[in-house]
């Protein structure tokens, strides 16, 4: 039991280390933004739920903020059905790449 616990702790530590090591690569995001551009690349595009509002401008936004927003959708801290659906399909690396991509736009 102690051994199992130790293994789990180590695994947890390895996970944390991996999370810290994820570095966003904007050029790797090209193939990953297909799901984003259908709304976020269309000027004036509006979401209709739960309010009617223009979806946010992402270009030039802070990469760390985009990451934390996507992770909040993933985790359920942000409860937006369509964004949650998209966020849960992304890996940590996908999220870092997409965040770097949008942050680099001018």
């Amino acid at each position, binding site marked *: 039991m102690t051994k199992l616990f130790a293994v789990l702790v180590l695994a947890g530590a390895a996970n944390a280390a991996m999370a810290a090591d994820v570095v966003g690569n904007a050029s790797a995001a090209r193939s990953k933004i297909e799901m984003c551009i259908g709304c976020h690349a269309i000027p004036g595009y509006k979401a209709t739920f739960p309010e009617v*509002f223009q*979806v946010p401008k992402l270009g030039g936004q802070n990469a760390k903020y985009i990451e934390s927003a996507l992770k909040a959708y993933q985790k359920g801290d942000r*409860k937006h059905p369509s964004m949650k659906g998209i966020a849960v399909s992304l890996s940590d690396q996908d999220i870092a790449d997409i965040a770097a991509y949008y942050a680099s*736009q001018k």
Partner: protein
Amino acid sequence: MKKLTVALMFASVSMAATAGGNVTAGKALAEKYACATCHGKDFNSPIDPSYPKLAGQHRDYLEHALVAYKRADGANGRNNPIMAGLVKPLSNQDIKDIAAYLHSLPGTLVVRR
């Protein structure tokens, strides 16, 4: 009839102002609630990279985000310990005014493919 027309005109003018939010009132509210302390004095340079730039962001999105923080853990809410406390005192009109003010600021955010 004339009176009614005038009354209707006034009503529609004041409604338009309400729907759009008031930039001056929003500036005062942003100062009152010290939004710039975290989001940066020009709202383009947050003090921490995990906080969003707000200047020039879409007005209606900003409203939606603030309302979502108010809904907190409820349906379609946003659960954020910092923003939860800050949005608590805001009326719907306050939210519209703040959103109008932040949207009016010169920003660097863009919509690109």
